[in-house]
């Protein structure tokens, strides 16, 4: 019997040893001197389908695999990229793109205007939700010759170039055979014209890209890029510090750790710190159609009782800009176009002052009549509100808690409800809530159309305050059609002033993101205020820190063999399944009862 136990233990240990063998395909390769740059991702890619892209993580990978007609340069302006040049008609509605001639797909075939026209037509035809700004603007496309394509717009569209910077040009030969472009995941060998080729993805772990040696703008000097997924910014920060990866990307250093990071950078010459000011707007939204939020003086009182400097100090450790009531982030002021109207900051117009807030509430006759510390409106409703914050953003929860305490002091009671992100977003889009602390990414001034134009004041629109001002509407429409930068700036500035007068949103802060990256393996990072260190321009420019002899061995075949989706067998009629299932269950029940009785 002792032997049996021994035997059992031997079997168990064999099991332990065998387990690694059944784990995913093992890449065994000869040692090569290859330099891959490693950067972090915040979440797994959901798709490589360029038309269904919604995550920043996905666009980080796609912008390397695919090319676009325009790209955003490090200084923030949009420059023609796959288009060598663009002719725009006098009225701004006809755009003629001259496509570069020396561009090759990753499979070696040349890119032509036909591919470009195909891509644009597919978006117009299928109306992919995430590319609505493109299909709404485009009327039709016209193929002039192999390297020229003309696009007719429905209206003059100033932000067409920025919109096109998210239109990844796909290969016609491949995509015309795709049955359902909505659900096609495109993980099996996505072919683009970008500087990096798709190699592999280990779901939930990493994505690997290899340099495209035939890239038209010059081959990247590194051998590839690997994006590794981390569950928290903390983990990504530690990974850079330890040298597991070269740069943080999408995950930035928690604000309170920045001073520690600065010490690390000072102590270790291999480390660098980069601050980015994303085009990001953090605010509290309340529905303007709901009493008492409909009263502008009430919102002013609320603004007076928000201490933005304390938020910046406590929650962001000083690394944020105070919010502008014009709702645009100050980083726009650092770009050549200068869309930002200064002087509309909340702290300038409504400096933190609880007494002012109280006296405004008094004058509105919002008085605490029953002595419970909460004011009532003249008709007796208590000023008690729910403030939602999403559970995945610690900073928003902390802001909600701070604001709750300040407003409590002026007699406005707030209950902070922390819900999961999806629920918060769907409540946000339902427009039926009291208060939500939210942040929104808008990359181009034209995107403010979404949150300020009255057309967005419908359920599921982003104008969650249901803000309606015909003058602002008109300004937004004019700037959209204004191709001249000077004149467009005037319109946008005027719009920001108008919005700051109406205060539809309680602006809070525009955060700065701190990224750590390494220079011991590769050098030549292109740093820009609007990008993280790992951006398109960096990856194109990076080179090994110590020159290595180029590897003679060819890169291993990228062959992830496409797996055939087995079509569901259409043969079995539905009724038979039903009958079969019912029969099995009846037999099971009968067998159970009969045999059990004995």
């Amino acid at each position, binding site marked *: *019997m*002792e032997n049996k*136990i021994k035997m059992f*233990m031997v079997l*168990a240990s064999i099991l332990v040893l065998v*387990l*690694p063998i*059944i*784990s*995913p395909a*093992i*890449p*065994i390769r*000869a040692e*090569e001197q290859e330099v*891959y740059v*490693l950067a972090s991702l915040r979440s*797994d890619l*959901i798709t490589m*389908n360029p038309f269904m892209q919604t995550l920043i993580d996905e666009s980080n990978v796609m912008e390397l695999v695919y090319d676009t007609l325009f790209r955003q340069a490090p200084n923030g302006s949009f420059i023609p990229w796959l288009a060598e040049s663009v002719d725009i008609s006098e009225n701004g509605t006809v755009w003629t793109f001259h496509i570069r001639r020396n561009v090759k797909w990753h499979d070696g075939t040349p890119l032509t205007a036909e591919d470009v026209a195909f891509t644009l037509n597919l978006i117009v035809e299928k109306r992919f*939700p*995430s590319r609505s700004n493109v299909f709404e603007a485009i009327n039709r496309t016209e193929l002039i010759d192999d390297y020229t394509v003309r696009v007719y717009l429905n209206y003059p569209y100033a932000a067409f170039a920025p919109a096109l910077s998210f239109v990844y040009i796909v290969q016609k030969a491949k995509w015309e055979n795709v049955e*359902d472009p*909505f*659900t096609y*995941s495109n993980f099996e060998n996505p072919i683009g014209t970008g500087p990096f080729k798709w190699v592999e993805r*280990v*779901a*939930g*772990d*990493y994505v*690997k890209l290899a340099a495209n040696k035939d890239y038209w703008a010059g081959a990247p000097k590194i051998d*590839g890029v*690997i994006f590794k*997924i*981390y569950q928290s910014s903390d*983990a990504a920060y*530690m*990974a850079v510090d*330890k040298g*597991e990866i070269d740069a943080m990307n999408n995950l930035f250093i928690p604000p309170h750790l920045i001073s520690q990071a600065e010490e690390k950078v000072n102590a270790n010459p291999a480390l660098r710190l980069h601050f980015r000011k994303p085009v990001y707007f953090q605010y509290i939204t309340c529905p303007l159609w709901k009493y008492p939020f409909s009263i502008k003086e009430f919102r002013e009182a609320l603004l007076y009782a928000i201490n933005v400097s304390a938020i910046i100090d406590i929650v962001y450790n000083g690394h944020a800009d105070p919010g502008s009531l014009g709702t645009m982030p100050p980083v726009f002021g650092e770009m050549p176009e200068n869309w930002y109207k200064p002087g509309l900051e909340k702290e300038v117009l409504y400096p933190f002052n609880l007494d002012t807030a109280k006296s405004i509430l008094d004058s509105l006759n919002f008085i605490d009549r029953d002595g419970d510390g909460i004011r009532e409106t003249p008709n007796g409703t208590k000023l008690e509100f729910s403030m939602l914050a999403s559970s995945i953003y610690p900073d928003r929860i902390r802001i909600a808690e701070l604001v709750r305490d300040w407003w409590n002091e002026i007699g406005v009671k707030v209950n902070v409800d922390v819900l999961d*992100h*999806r629920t918060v977003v*769907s409540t946000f*889009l339902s427009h039926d809530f009291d208060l939500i602390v939210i942040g929104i990414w808008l990359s181009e001034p034209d995107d403010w159309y979404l949150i300020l134009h009255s057309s967005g004041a419908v359920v*599921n629109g982003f104008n969650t305050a249901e803000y309606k001002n015909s003058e602002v509407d008109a300004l937004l429409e004019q700037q959209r059609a204004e191709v001249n930068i000077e004149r467009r700036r005037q319109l946008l500035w005027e719009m920001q002033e108008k919005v700051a007068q109406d205060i539809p949103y309680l602006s809070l802060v525009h955060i700065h993101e701190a990224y750590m990256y390494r220079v011991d393996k590769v050098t030549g990072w292109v740093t820009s205020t609007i990008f993280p260190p790992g951006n398109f321009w960096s990856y194109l420019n990076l080179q090994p820190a110590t020159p290595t002899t180029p590897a003679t061995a060819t890169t291993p075949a990228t062959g992830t063999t496409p797996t055939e*989706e087995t079509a*569901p*067998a259409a043969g*079995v009629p*539905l009724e038979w*399944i039903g009958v079969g*299932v019912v029969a*099995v*269950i009846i*037999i*099971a*029940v009968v067998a*159970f009862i009969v045999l*059990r009785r004995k």
Partner: protein
Amino acid sequence: MTGVLRLIIVKLSYRIIILFIILTLIFLIPRLAPGLPIDYLVEDPRVPPEIRSELMAKFGLDKPIFPDQYLDFLERTILHLDFGYSFMYQESVFKVIAERITWSILLVGSALAISFILGTCLGIFAAWRRGKITDYSVVFSVLFVRSMPVFWTGMILLLFLSYYYNIFPTGGAIQPGAKYDSFLDYAYDVLRHLALPLMAIIPFFTAKYLMVMRNSMVDVVTEDYIVTAKAKGLSDRKIMFEHAARNALLPVITMLAIDIGSIMGGAVVTETVFSYPGVGLLIYSAVMNHDYPLILGAFFIISAVTLITTFIAEILYTMLDPRVKAHEA
């Protein structure tokens, strides 16, 4: 043998009924819950209505719930192992789970194997020294180890072994982009990444098996036949291993069978702490993203595997243990 056969049929049919109930629940939950799964798409304000109905049709949500959707659901799940389409990944649920499952099998499977061996051996040891100081110290440490939340043990391990002393990587399953000279190299890399998560969960499972093994041993030792054997003058050691351990192992095996089913669910908390790309992490993100098909598909697979493993365990149990009466279903 007819007795055993009948028992097998009873147990099997009972399980089919249970599985069917679970299947029906899985069908009903997202359809009866407020906020249809289609919410995921409706949420995007820019989805035009015609696309929305097209997508509704694609997911089969435009047909009446009963019988069309239900029969369709049964056909897909039972015949094609098709649990629908993950909203989040736009990919078949089965495929999404399959992509991650190997890592969970590796992590939880090896943790279970190691814990099982450690737990039973230590359990026999403690029972042998029953009532002595060794027994008490083993039981004491086991109770304490089981009292620590697994995620916290993980955090502490991460803090000390990875952050303060750079011994193990901070997370992930393999070093991305690494080149391996040989299989050994690869295995080493996998094990290096596996070490911390394993260290976090092994104590938990070991403690669990140890406790059951010890108590079951103590129980068996007081049985009549062991007492008889003792009276006959057989040596302690012989009794321990030849008679007691064999019978005492049965409840531990039953427990192992249930835990094997949980392999499929991965280790949610551990995988989150260590960014380990298994099914647990997948389920966590599916929950956070309200990806109903993925959650329910995972639930079904976990329950089905648990049913199968416990079924096998029970049959083995019956065959090995004469004391188990056939009428217990």
